[in-house]
């Protein structure tokens, strides 16, 4: 926690993401046009969310094995930041969809949002909101830690089919689903252009580091607040 090089790296990568992401050349596809730049923000938010949730899962399992109260604090802090990143991912995705998926036939955005992939993403966020409601319902700290750790493992297991499997089975407008050739060729590219890759990978790394940074700050304040208990 006391090493600072990765924080500096996070700042540099994010500055590069924002400057490079808005100024560097991108391929302009039909419909998608310049909005492809959202890839650096929208997709990396979900990457960060999944990584943070996975870390939270690991700490929950660690808690169940060791009953060390610190691991519970870690798990809840990572889940919290993960949920926040998920909300940002949903918001950036909704903005993107409102420009690329809405056709000129006067559809409303809400018809677009009724999409398997977006439903899955919404459910994922709700599952973790329920995690925090569950946390709030206990008075006993040990009981809270144990029961929420159990729920966290269960939630992560249910998260996987929700986001990754079901949208691929039922078909979706979102890239990465079979049958996405339903009238929107712009979303059908499977391969990512090398010009995009130049910014995309640093962006994922940068946002993930930022997520971890925020979480470590939260963990530190929490550890100080509960110093007497540990």
């Amino acid at each position: 926690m006391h090493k600072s090089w990765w924080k500096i790296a996070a700042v540099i990568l994010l500055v590069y993401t924002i400057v490079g992401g808005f100024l560097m050349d991108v391929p302009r596809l039909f419909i998608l046009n310049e909005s492809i730049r959202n890839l650096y923000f929208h997709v990396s938010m979900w990457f960060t969310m999944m990584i943070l949730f996975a870390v939270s899962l690991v700490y929950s399992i660690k808690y169940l094995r060791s009953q060390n109260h610190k691991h519970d604090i870690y798990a809840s802090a990572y889940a919290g930041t993960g949920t926040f990143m998920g909300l940002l991912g949903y918001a950036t995705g909704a903005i993107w969809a409102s420009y690329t998926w809405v056709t000129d036939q006067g559809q409303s955005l809400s018809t677009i949002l009724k999409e398997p992939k977006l439903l899955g993403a919404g459910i994922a966020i709700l599952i973790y909101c329920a995690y925090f409601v569950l946390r709030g319902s206990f008075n006993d700290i040990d009981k809270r830690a144990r029961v929420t750790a159990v729920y966290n493992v269960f939630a992560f297991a249910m998260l996987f089919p929700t986001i990754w499997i079901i949208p691929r089975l039922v078909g979706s407008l979102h890239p990465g689903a079979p049958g996405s050739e339903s009238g929107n060729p712009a979303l059908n590219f499977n391969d990512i252009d090398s010009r995009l890759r130049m910014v995309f990978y640093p962006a994922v790394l940068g946002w993930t580091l930022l997520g971890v940074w925020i979480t470590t700050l939260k963990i530190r304040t929490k550890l100080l607040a509960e110093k007497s208990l540990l």
Partner: protein
Amino acid sequence: MVSAKKILTLFKKDLLLEVRQQYTFYGIVLYIACTVYILFLAISEPDASVWNALFWVNMLFISINAVAKSFLQESRGRMLYYYTIASPQEFILAKLFYNVLLMLVMSLLSLITFSFFLGSPFVNAPQYIGITLLGGISMSLVFTLLAAIASRANQNAAIMVIMGFPVIIPQLLLLIRISKAAFGEVFKDGAFLQMTFLLGGLDILVLALCMILFPFLWKD
């Protein structure tokens, strides 16, 4: 270490309790009857998609009502007693089997009342019965684990609903999707089987998670 005999005994105990205190069973039956009758008064012959939607909403609430009881009725002292005589895996397996059986009965019952009062718009009835049973099993498994978690939290029912809804939606999504096959919708090659297998896979996943996670909930 998991002995089938103990599971059977615990299972029998739940069944016996149900037979002796029939108010829970008839409570749920009355619940089904009321729901269907109100629907019957409001809409007489709904078309297939409305029928399907109403049916799965009904199934969801029945499963919450039916399964939540299984842990609510266990007092603290009785849980302590089970703790001394059985392993957590045996206990949860007995509960799971019992809840699956209860949900299978309830699913069939609500399917019968639904088709009696609201008509039966399906083309392929056996397929729809199969999907209903699969749905009943899936829901009872998920809600059993959630009921076990909620029984550790103080305000039982509300917490279970809050946790349950987001978790069950993926399965409901799949169930609603595949049940359209019984209404005559044609699927892409293999898509139907794929989704059915995924539902089965999810059931196995939940079962495995129950076995692994319940021991942690059990000790207090």
